[in-house]
């Protein structure tokens, strides 16, 4: 207890608890979100010292203006073919998300997470990285897998936990693992992949390899201790890694202020660690591409890590288990000043005379059919809850490389339990 009488001349302290600007029912006005022109950000040499990135950590690297024109020092001047590929991959990701979201609503699986509005973050990065660079994603970078050509049916099999699921029904839907596509096993535990990516990058460097690592987390997850340890390790050993912070403004129901956004940017975190920091327009696929390409070159030339903050907006609920109308204004996604990443790249290509509305509509139809066909194929392997798709005793496999005696014993016990319940190994639950 303090001595109240002696301290009575001091003003009382006040605890600041952040509050988002808009709650359900509020009119939305994002006028205070600064959107600088595309030529505002300089493009430094990839060997520039990390302590010189203050302006880029607080600015916003952009290539595509809202009218669809491209400009500024970061314009990667991609070929129309390359841009059409990115557009297609973004549209594929959206189509896949829509289909799987609906599958969850139809009760065909337990869970799904969309990346609506954030497609550029994954697709722009995947286009800029080499296919054998190792990605340590969070759960919202499915666009990387789709960009790298992962089979849709394989991904859906995982979502359905069915006979075709190579993770053998062990993992929650969307927690993919695709080593062949340089896509590290997704964990439910946030930001654990950050130091792991650094370790992978350090190993690559220690072995004299040429591959680099990239990792993603949301802005909310930057508050985890692993974020700090990863940044420290990456800086200390100059690890060839790219840190991506997907600032989509929301961590489930908590706005970015609860991760520290009221006081600074997430790119600015890099400055304190001695890491190059770029804050970019995350709804601008060309900016994502350009920044990733830049960071990859910096990493590949042993200049060390880069942290990229992708300033974007989570247009959908956090997951199929979330209802965003309970905590934010329904008007937010449409009012977001950086728009929709697919629309922006589409308009850019149309402006160049390299695309048109009819082709876009045809592409959407084709992708929708492709996803639908894949879904049909995947459902032949079963959907969640309709019978047991893996022999029940496989749950004991793979805990260790070789099954130790206590697990063999528990496996035998389970077989006996199932047998007394009249269930065979491959049979129904």
């Amino acid at each position: 207890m303090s001595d109240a009488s002696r301290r009575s001349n001091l003003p009382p302290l006040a605890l600041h608890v952040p509050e988002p600007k808009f709650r359900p029912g509020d009119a939305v006005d994002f006028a205070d979100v600064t959107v600088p022109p595309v030529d505002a950000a300089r493009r430094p040499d990839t060997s520039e010292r990390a302590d010189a990135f203050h302006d880029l950590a607080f600015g916003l690297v952009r290539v595509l203006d809202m009218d669809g024109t491209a400009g500024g020092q970061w314009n990667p001047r991609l070929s129309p073919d390359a841009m059409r590929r990115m557009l297609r991959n973004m549209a594929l990701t959206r189509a896949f998300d829509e289909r799987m979201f609906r599958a969850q609503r139809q009760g065909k699986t337990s869970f799904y997470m969309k990346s609506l509005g954030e497609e550029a973050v994954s697709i722009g990065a995947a286009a800029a990285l080499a296919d054998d660079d190792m990605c340590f994603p969070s759960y919202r970078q499915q666009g990387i897998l789709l960009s790298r050509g992962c089979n849709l049916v394989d991904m859906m099999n995982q979502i359905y936990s069915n006979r075709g699921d190579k993770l053998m029904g062990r993992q929650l839907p969307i927690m993919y693992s695709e080593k062949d596509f340089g896509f590290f096993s997704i964990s439910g535990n946030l930001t654990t992949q950050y130091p792991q990516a650094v370790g992978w990058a350090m190993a690559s460097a220690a072995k004299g390899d040429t591959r680099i690592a990239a990792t993603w987390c949301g802005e909310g997850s930057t508050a985890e201790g692993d974020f700090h340890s990863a940044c420290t390790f990456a800086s200390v050993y100059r690890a060839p890694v790219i840190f991506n912070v997907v600032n989509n403004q929301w961590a489930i129901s908590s706005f970015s202020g609860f991760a520290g956004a009221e006081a600074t940017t997430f790119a600015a975190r890099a400055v304190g660690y001695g890491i190059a920091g770029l804050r970019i327009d995350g709804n601008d696929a060309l900016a994502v591409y350009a920044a990733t390409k830049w960071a990859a070159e910096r990493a590949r030339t042993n200049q060390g890590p880069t942290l990229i903050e992708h300033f974007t907006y989570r247009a959908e609920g956090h997951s199929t288990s979330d209802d965003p109308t309970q905590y934010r204004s329904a008007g937010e996604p449409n009012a977001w000043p950086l728009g929709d990443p697919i629309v922006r790249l589409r308009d850019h290509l149309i402006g160049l005379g390299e695309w048109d509305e009819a082709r876009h509509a045809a592409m959407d139809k084709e992708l929708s059919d492709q996803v639908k066909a894949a879904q049909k194929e995947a459902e032949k392997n079963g959907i969640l809850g309709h019978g047991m798709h893996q022999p029940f005793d496989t749950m004991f496999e793979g805990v260790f490389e070789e099954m130790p005696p206590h697990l063999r014993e528990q496996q035998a016990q389970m077989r006996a339990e199932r047998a007394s319940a009249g269930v065979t190994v491959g049979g129904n639950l």
Partner: protein
Amino acid sequence: MARMNMIQAINSAMDVMMARDPDVIVMGEDVGYFGGVFRATAGLQAKYGKTRVFDTPITECGIIGVAVGMGAYGLRPVPEIQFADYIYPALDQLVSEAARLRYRSAGEFTAPITVRSPFGGGIFGGQTHSQSPEGIFTHVSGLKTVIPSTPYDAKGLLIAAIEDNDPTIFFEPKRIYNGPFDGHYDRPSKNWSAHPGGEVPEDYYRIDLGTANVVRAGNDVTILAYGTMVHVAMNTIETLGIDAEIVDLRSLVPLDIETIEASVKKTGRCVIVHEATRTGGFGAELSAQVQERCFHHLEAPIERVTGFDTPYPHSLEWAYFPGPVRIGDALKKVMKD
């Protein structure tokens, strides 16, 4: 053969494995140039270079997280946590990541890491240099937990752990780094020179994980112990003249239950000894398994001699430590029935 203390044996194990496998790397706080606060990594950086043996920032979650990533790349990291008391910041990486990686990726990615960490009390280490947290790790599916009691075992088990493709927690009882400790803190300390466990081959050899060691055959009671407590138990029964069979578990997961079961069925009595706190400790698991398997052979209730359910005290250490008096009382109690 050479005479080694446990630190030298552990150093030798890493030396042997680094020479055999270029993917073995050693990392941790102060392990590089300085050679470790207990000298366990002395000379390794000079011999193998800074990219294979290096100092790390002081961040346990970072050390283990980075090691998991290195393992995913294809290296075989041997990270050190300076004291087991400081392993907790790394728990998420160990429990949620290293232990689950093989399972959740159906074998696509693995974590072939060996986490070395000095543990245990008896050194006036107080609350944060004395703990025995093995029970936290034996509870985690996917982790192996190993604890040696002699220099010979330490080297053979550490080599096996490094070669193992599963993540292993390797706890080193620091009280017996320099010599076997019989629990008599008021007598001059011994070194390993006169103990058979101090004879250590200089070259490669391994002791398979999951194999217990019957360090003394006996007929009247089985003592289940590991680490420092193996030596304390041995001294206690010699002093009291009890014909006990002492089983040094060496590996808690996987557990050599066959050796335990055979011993208790022979003796009909069982005393479990560990430094760790009692409630939820590994002794509870041992007691349950012995009860399940040897119920009709038991002639007395199973006794547990453990640390008390308190934080590890400083000045009251020798009242807390499961020393000869406490073990002796338990033995007399089970022998009475």
